[in-house]
């Protein structure tokens, strides 16, 4: 395999509007082969539109796409692939019912226009592709049975096999352990040496700093800063992204001494997900729980709320033991739960903001004779839109018309309306921009000060350090370590995780 000569890939003055609203207004960027470039920006800054334009999914209104020595005013996905552009999406776009080998080899068959399929050829193609990036994965395994990190490597192998010259990686490290990230970066280094231009889309600033040579920061569809990575500091990146000076200092309120507990969880066991988990939360306390994907952190949160089976154990809310495996019992005892995926679990997407806001406590809004009081519904809607500063002109608009941060506030409001004693938040700021994230954390802080207990389950370590009084780390279904307020430190927590 010959190394490519230095070539440049990029866009010039790209403008793209969707029905009158500008998603990108005059964006230019350029990546040389053998370089790792970072695109950073909040949700809605135009990152994904840019990827879609460069990979031929969307056509730009005006502007030029340059791929090596060719320029395009309009690019089809087929042309993009032909020119060596590959995108690894967050879901990796693998076919789950097929084997590793088949997943890697199928695009090759397609590009060769081959009508026949041979098992031995498939294995050969796959083995070569994995060899090329120096990865060892069982090619006969089914894709469903392998780890997320392996899936990602397969996606990379598949891309290189198609003669990748420019590779996009969209938030590639979200679900990986530290060790796996390190391995991924080694593979990226190899691609770099082979002359691939890599574009890395991420919001994890320390990782960007580690792997990228150059950076472009987008905000509201414009380039607000670009240059060599070394010239940027952590603060200047996040400031450029948000346009605000958002600090990540701790905002957890001082914890008052309390003799009572909001909740006590004793010896929770569900084999094999978790083995003997016990902890308690005091009024006004914010307890963080973290762990890697598959450690049991999500399941623990769901189990307390009765959405994941518990084999044995005890959950005590304000001194009273509650019935296990029952969400109605949990709700009645005063437990609220914001699930991790707001699109599929939290929201009724096409329904109005108002209906979403009242979804949990619908029965509260009936007057005598089971009649639904429209007036009380509207009042409640207005109150929560105002209290949580949800940005909308009309509560009857569908909840899809809101940005991610505002949608998350709707889910939060739906549960705050029940005034729970314990609020379980599973990934409270996933897919929320930095400005909104700060405001959501402040909402949590304010409620905690009023005495609401919080259980925050998250993989976002800086966020946990910002808001929590205590953090538990879960590993293989057990609490591996507990960190007190004075022991909270990013490095230490990351170390405990991996």
């Amino acid at each position, binding site marked *: 395999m010959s190394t490519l000569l230095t070539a440049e890939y990029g866009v010039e003055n790209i403008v793209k509007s969707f*029905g009158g609203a500008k998603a990108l207004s005059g964006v230019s960027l350029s990546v040389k082969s053998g370089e790792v470039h970072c695109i950073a920006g909040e949700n809605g800054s135009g990152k994904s539109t840019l990827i879609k334009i460069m990979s031929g999914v969307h056509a730009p209104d005006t502007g030029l796409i340059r791929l090596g020595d060719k320029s395009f005013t309009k690019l089809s996905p087929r042309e993009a692939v032909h020119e060596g552009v590959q995108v690894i999406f967050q879901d990796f776009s693998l076919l789950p019912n097929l084997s590793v080998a088949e997943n890697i080899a199928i695009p090759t068959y397609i590009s060769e226009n081959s009508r026949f399929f041979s098992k031995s050829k498939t294995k050969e193609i796959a083995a070569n592709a994995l060899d090329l990036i120096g990865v060892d994965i069982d090619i006969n395994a089914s894709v469903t049975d392998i780890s997320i990190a392996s899936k990602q490597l397969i996606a990379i192998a598949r891309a290189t096999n198609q003669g990748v010259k420019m590779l996009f990686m969209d938030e590639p490290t979200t679900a990986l352990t530290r060790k796996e990230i390190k391995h991924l970066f080694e593979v990226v280094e190899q691609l770099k040496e082979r002359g691939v231009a890599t574009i890395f889309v991420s919001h994890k600033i320390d990782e960007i700093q580690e792997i990228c040579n150059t950076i472009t920061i987008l905000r509201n569809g414009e380039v607000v800063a670009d240059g060599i990575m070394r010239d940027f500091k952590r603060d200047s990146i996040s400031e450029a992204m948000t346009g605000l000076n958002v600090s990540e200092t701790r905002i957890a309120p001082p914890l008052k001494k309390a003799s009572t507990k909001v909740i006590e969880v004793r010896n929770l066991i569900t084999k094999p997900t978790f083995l003997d988990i016990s902890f308690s939360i005091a009024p006004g306390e914010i307890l963080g729980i973290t762990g890697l994907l598959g450690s049991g952190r999500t399941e623990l949160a769901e189990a307390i709320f009765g959405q994941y089976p518990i084999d044995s154990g005890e959950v005590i809310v304000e001194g009273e033991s509650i019935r296990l495996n029952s969400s109605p019992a949990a709700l009645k005892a005063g437990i609220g739960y914001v699930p991790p995926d707001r699109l599929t679990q939290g929201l009724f997407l096409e*329904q109005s903001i108002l209906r979403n806001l009242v979804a949990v406590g*619908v029965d509260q809004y009936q007057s005598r004779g089971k009649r639904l009081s429209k007036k009380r519904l509207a009042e409640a809607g207005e109150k929560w839109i105002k209290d949580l500063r949800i940005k909308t002109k009309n509560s*009857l608009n569908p909840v899809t*018309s809101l940005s991610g941060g505002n949608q998350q506030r709707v889910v939060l409001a739906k549960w705050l309306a029940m005034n729970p004693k314990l609020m379980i938040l599973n990934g409270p700021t996933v897919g929320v921009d930095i400005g909104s994230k700060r405001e959501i954390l402040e909402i949590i802080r304010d409620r905690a000060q009023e005495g609401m207990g919080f259980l925050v389950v998250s993989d976002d370590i800086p966020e946990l350090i910002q808001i929590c009084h205590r953090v538990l780390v879960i590993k293989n279904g057990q609490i591996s370590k507990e960190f007190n307020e004075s022991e909270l430190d990013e490095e230490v927590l990351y170390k405990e995780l991996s």
Partner: protein
Amino acid sequence: MNERFNKINSGLLADRKVTQLMVITAGTFAIFSLVSRDIFFSSANFTSMAYQIPEIAILSIAVMLSMLTGGIDLSIVAISNAAALVAAWIMTTKMGESETLSYSWIIIACVVGTLVGLAAGAVNSIIIARLDVTPILATLATGTLFNGIAIGITDGVSVSGLPENFMRVGNGTFLGIPTPFVLMVVIALAVGYFINRTTLGLKVFLVGTNRKAAQYSVMGDRKVIAWIYLISALLSSLAGLIIASRTSAASPDFGSSYILLAIVVVVLGGINPNGGFGTITGVILATAVLQMVSSGFNALRFSQFFYLAAQGAVLVFVMILNVVLERRRVSRSISKSLRS
């Protein structure tokens, strides 16, 4: 000012499908009235339409309710016939040789018939809400089962010769309006109140939009679904009794084509087959449109075979229109959210 405009605007948007249907209804009416001034635009025709609309409208409302939760009830006709057969059997047995029957026995017969219908609905509720069987398969199976039991017991023979005073309900008038039509209006208002003005009704829309989110919101999604199949069975039973009263007979294989017709009506009426959206006004208007097309074709002496094609054409047209409008709406809302 702006805020008020927004409110009105979104209110209209919410009922966009109804507005669209009103235009279609008025247009259909105008065209047939103009083309066939003496036959279609006559009180005799209007009266006959007013007797024919209620049955299919009530069955369609039943289908609408299950569709709002994202399911479907294919057993409505079987339940409707079962209720009618039980009631008819009690009446004919009790009346013996006479032509009338005391009102108390008629009421008892209707109540028992309805209870049998409700029992059938309870079977659906258990299978769908409790055991999580897909509604389309569950009700296809139970519908076949109920129908099979009815055919087995009656040997497939219809029960006819119902009491005259019972027939007066289906063929009489109330304040000059055909009684079945009055009953339909009452039922439509009641169901409208239920879905728009009760908490259970609101839950129906939410469960239909996203069952998973409903589970996480602890609103008792199973209970909501169980209720819907019970209410669907209740409406089907009432439709069955009205049909028996109008035709003076009950038979296990009556109106087997009604189930498809009801689905056509519901989809034409703007109910989202995936659940979560729809209005009762839409269903009533859609029934009226289809009945007018049918009566109009009769008046113009077109072949009934072509009526079927016309019905299909209306459906295809509306579906395409819905998809096109929906696409426009989505792209607009995307641009709107980008702008804000």
